[in-house]
């Protein structure tokens, strides 16, 4: 039960209690509970990942970058779905909206990647404020449908009435990404020692943003703020009775998660130099739902894992001769099985197995 709600005091206690007695599992748990170890694990993960990926998994660098981008998106989505218990079916509007904002900003204001990232994210946050304000009046199915409604509305807006801005069905092509801080070519190669692990600067840039995002999500979820999110998920009415302004916290959870979607969307534009109209369609929202649920809701690394797995299947497995035409179908079956049998996704399943093993050790 490693990813169960943990309040600030427990984390602090685990921090202070450095010399934990007991088995290896306890020691591992106390190590993992510290924020710095989460960040370190993420750093090691993203640093070694492309090397493993390129050499053992038939992948390619561009896909590794894309996985991290969608990973950021999924981590943010999980703050809303897994921790606060709100299922949004319109999250593509923040991903795609930020992608468009970033693209348009790069073409007409500044091509600096950092500013583009900032502009896209800021746009997603502002948009989330409005959409969240309007769709959070109702829970459950009403919330899902209202977000879906706003998502579809934005898709059709971008498709034709706003085509003079977005270039309609052809997607936004005039993206212009300059060099990082004026010196580093973001689409160029990396200097020597790094070449052993990664190929291009873009991955490094996305990896740094991804690590920062994971650290940020970790900090939010382990703060008293995150505890309130979980309280709302467990029992909204009870949270209200103890005096919490539930509506405001839900809105903040929505905006925070949209900010992650915005970061991911902006990176998507920087990575691909192109914004497809499809990025606003509701199937894109569906994709992020699948990634997050498949990987594991209510955990930090589950959604990252889910995003990676989804894209891996989509790009690599779909190329296999026999499985290729059926890959989406297989994914659907796996998804349904996960929802029915493993509500906490693959990551939750791993946790479950480990708990069984560790529990056996104790007895």
């Amino acid at each position, binding site marked *: 039960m490693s990813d169960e709600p943990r309040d600030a005091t427990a984390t602090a206690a685990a921090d202070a209690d450095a010399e934990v007695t007991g088995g290896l599992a306890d020691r591992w748990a106390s190590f993992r509970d510290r924020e710095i170890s989460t960040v370190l694990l993420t750093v090691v993960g993203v640093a070694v990942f492309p090397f493993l990926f390129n050499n053992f998994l038939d992948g390619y660098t561009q896909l590794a970058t894309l996985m991290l981008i969608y990973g950021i998106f999924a981590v943010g989505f999980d703050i809303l779905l897994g921790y606060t218990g709100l299922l949004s079916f319109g999250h593509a509007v923040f991903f795609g909206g930020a992608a468009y904002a970033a693209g348009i900003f790069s073409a007409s204001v500044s091509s600096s990647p950092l500013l583009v990232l900032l502009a896209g994210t800021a746009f997603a946050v502002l948009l989330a404020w409005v959409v969240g304000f309007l769709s959070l009046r109702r829970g459950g199915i009403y919330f899902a449908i209202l977000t879906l409604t706003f998502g579809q*509305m934005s898709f*059709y807006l971008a498709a034709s009435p706003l*085509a003079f801005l977005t270039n309609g069905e052809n997607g936004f092509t005039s993206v212009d990404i300059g060099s990082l801080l004026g010196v580093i070519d973001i689409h160029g190669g990396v200097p020597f020692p790094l070449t052993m692990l990664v190929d291009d600067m873009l991955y490094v840039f996305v990896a740094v943003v991804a690590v920062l995002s994971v650290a940020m999500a970790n900090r939010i979820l382990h703060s008293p703020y995150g505890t309130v999110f979980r309280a709302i998920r467990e029992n909204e009415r009870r949270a209200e009775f103890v005096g919490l302004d539930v509506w405001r916290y839900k809105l903040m959870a929505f905006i925070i998660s949209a900010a992650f979607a915005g970061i991911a969307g902006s990176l998507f534009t920087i990575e691909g130099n192109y914004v497809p109209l499809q990025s606003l369609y509701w199937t894109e929202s569906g994709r992020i739902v699948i990634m997050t649920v498949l990987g594991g809701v209510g955990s930090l690394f589950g959604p990252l894992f889910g995003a990676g797995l989804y894209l891996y299947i989509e790009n690599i497995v779909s190329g296999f001769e026999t499985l290729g035409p059926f890959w989406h179908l297989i*994914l*659907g079956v796996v*998804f349904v099985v996960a929802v029915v049998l493993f509500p906490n996704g693959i990551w939750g399943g791993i946790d479950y197995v480990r708990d069984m093993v560790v529990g056996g050790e104790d007895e």
Partner: protein
Amino acid sequence: MTLLADILTILLNGLQQGAIYVLLAVGLSIILGTLKFVNFAHGALYLVGAYLGLFITGQVPLNDGQLAEWGIQSYGIGLGFVAALVIVPIVVFIIGLLMERFIAQAFYDRPDTDQILVTFGLAIIVQELLRALLGGNSQPFQQPSWASGPIALPVVGNFPRWRLGVIAITAVLVLGVYALVEYTDFGLIVQAGTLDGEMVRLLGIKLSRPYLVVFGIGAALAGVAGVVGGPLANVNPNIGTEQLVPAFLTVVIGGVGKIEGAVVAGLMLGTLQVFLIQTGYAAWSQVGIYALAALVLLVRPQGLLGSEVDVS
């Protein structure tokens, strides 16, 4: 009298456009209202209905998908449109029963987010299965020969006969369901169960069977919608999800569980869409229905005809 003719044409076209939304929404609505089950796979049932209708009405050449690769050149039995209108609802009714027993029932006590997730997954499975087997190409669905071509109406002038057919079929089906729910013992039990299931059970009435039937009827309506809506546009694996969102909007605008609400909302959406297209704002026609839906939901979250009570 050309203005009057324009208005009537828009209304008739809106009626036809809305009819498909209504057919889907009524099924969605009675399932949601009675069983409190959110069925994101409703669009998939529409899709099944459309393909099944295609299969029954004619020989469809296959040049794409796994079946074609396995050497099957066409599918279909050519029994005609009326046969499709009879067989499809029966088959999809049975699919609905199976869905209730084996999927939905396990989710009645789980949060509605889980219901949305599992039915969303089912929708993907159905859609992708059809795509894998039959290919992703659009296939034309012929209008029934007895209803093709235009008909001369007073004032309006020539109007496609099939569109009137769509309106008529929808009217008959929706009235039938309405009568079933409002005026029969079955409908009484279902309604009572919606209000207070516990009490109905205490009276010695088993609710699981009526619920099963409600799910089946809802599914059958989606199947018929596929047959009726098929000839209006080509059939491809995406039409299910494309219809799902407007259908949901119709339900929520009209008020969950209200058949008359679904009718009013469906006609509103259909007419608005046609109005925008015919007045030269085609680009806004899709945006318009979503904006209208958002507006209604913000002002009256329980829907136009929904009661304040049954909102959770």
